[in-house]
């Protein structure tokens, strides 16, 4: 059981990365981006491209990286993929969502357009890689370390938790300490007043997409490291992402973090009682329950 909880925290921290991006974007432009899960896939596959195609092409020798199940290439691929997906998210907004926003399109049109964008991303992955599973480094043994209480954790998973912790702490400091971060929170609070104060809200929207996309990419790569890569991985994350976002009160970054952990833990722990195949249903059930009994989420008291 303790082991399942630890695995749940690992899965939950990955869900959190996606949910935080989703909630930040929603907070600023009140738009539920159904393509967010597929941005996670995009991040994972771009990292795969860098580690398995781009860097080997330079002829540098392939070596392992510490006790982890990936090579040194990942150290480069991880941040580069985050940057690229940040750019992809900005691009999606500029060529698609912004146009619709300026036309005052309604929520259904916006949702459908993001659904369309999600299909496009997934199909591009299918065309390039096919529908097989991939690992960043196939054929590597992934030994686990034994901890007290019979908990077996792979070094990969410890690293995942560490990276998520770093990213979230970094984002927290950015939002609290920097001028741009504060302006992002101000814009999420009240976009009209932000404009009136002279804040360039278009620039804030671009920053928000970039951060949301980069975090999604990080989540996708970490899931790829922990489990495997599959074209539908991000799409399958969509329900957990929305469940975490709604659970943590939509628009609230810290809520999304907690929501993600709750969803991750519930999903993993559920496998002790029900067939693992039903795991995705757990997030769905939680989402329905929240919508029925506490539609504004757990943190609806204040805006933060």
């Amino acid at each position: 059981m303790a082991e399942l909880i630890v695995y749940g925290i690992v899965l939950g921290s990955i869900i959190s990365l996606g949910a935080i991006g989703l909630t930040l974007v929603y907070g600023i432009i009140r738009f539920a981006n159904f393509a967010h899960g597929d941005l996670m896939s995009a991040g994972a596959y771009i990292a795969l491209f860098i580690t398995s195609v781009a860097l080997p092409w330079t002829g540098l020798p392939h070596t392992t990286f510490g006790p982890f199940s990936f090579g040194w290439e990942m150290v480069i691929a991880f941040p580069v993929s985050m940057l690229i997906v940040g750019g992809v998210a900005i691009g999606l907004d500029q060529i698609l969502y912004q146009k619709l926003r300026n036309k005052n399109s309604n929520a259904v049109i916006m949702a459908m357009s993001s659904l369309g964008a999600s299909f496009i991303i997934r199909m591009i992955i299918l065309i390039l890689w096919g529908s097989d599973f991939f690992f960043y480094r196939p054929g590597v043994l992934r030994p686990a370390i034994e901890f007290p209480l019979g908990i077996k954790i792979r070094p990969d998973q410890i690293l995942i938790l560490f990276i998520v912790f770093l990213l979230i702490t970094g984002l927290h400091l950015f939002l609290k300490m920097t001028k741009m971060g504060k302006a992002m929170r101000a814009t999420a609070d009240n976009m009209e007043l932000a404009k009136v104060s002279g804040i360039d809200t278009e620039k804030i929207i671009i920053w928000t997409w970039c951060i949301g996309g980069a975090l999604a990419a990080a989540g996708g790569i970490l899931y790829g490291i922990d489990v495997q890569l599959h074209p539908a991985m991000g799409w399958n994350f969509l329900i957990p992402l929305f469940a975490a976002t709604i659970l943590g009160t939509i628009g609230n970054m810290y809520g999304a973090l907690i929501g993600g952990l709750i969803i991750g833990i519930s999903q993993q722990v559920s496998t002790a009682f029900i067939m693992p195949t039903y795991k995705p249903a757990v997030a769905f059930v939680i989402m329905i329950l929240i919508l029925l009994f506490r539609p504004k989420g757990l943190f609806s008291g204040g805006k933060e």
Partner: protein
Amino acid sequence: MTILTAKDIISGYTKVDILYNVNIKVEQGQIVSIIGPNGAGKSTLLKTIFGILKPRHGKVELKGEDITGLKPDKIVQKGISYVPQVDNVFPSLTIRENLEMGAFIRNDDYSGRIEDIYTLFPVLKDKSNQKASQLSGGQRQMVAMGRALMLDPGLLLLDEPSAGLAPRLVSMIFEKIIEINASGVAMIIVEQNAREALKMADHGYVLAMGKNVLDDTGEALLTSEEVGRLYLGG
């Protein structure tokens, strides 16, 4: 010297015009009060001057420069600040962060200006790290005005600064407005509280049904029989 003129403004929302050929003028250092019944277009006029609404006709000039149709973020850079009537603070930001947002376009050190605002509204200094959502109505109004003053504007637009405040706070806010004006900031104030607004005004305009009805010095309007009967409740 004339700071701002709005000439023959026709403006409103997408499908309806609210203002029909409205004219107003603000001289250096003046308080200009705009009064009139509900729906007269007072707030619409402020929004049009500040670029939130684009006039269909007419011209807004700031010190002779045509600023008609500029967006709010550009108008702010020209030295006009605006305090909306409602939703005029960032609730999840602290008081200090609210003030910092007012100085967003400043790249210099504005900590001195924050101290100035705290001197003007001492109660804010003690609550500097509290979220604006936890403040009372009067304190929120102070934060809203403080935010707008961060850029040291030459002209301040205030939309119903006394709306929803207890009587004791209303007179306190009006005293602060006079204090801010004394430091050289010209103002346009839109007010329901017409009598108080005219008392402190150098010049007053009466709007009704989106048109100029009367304009004169604040004092003359206060003593005018017609204004008294129609707009000051006897």
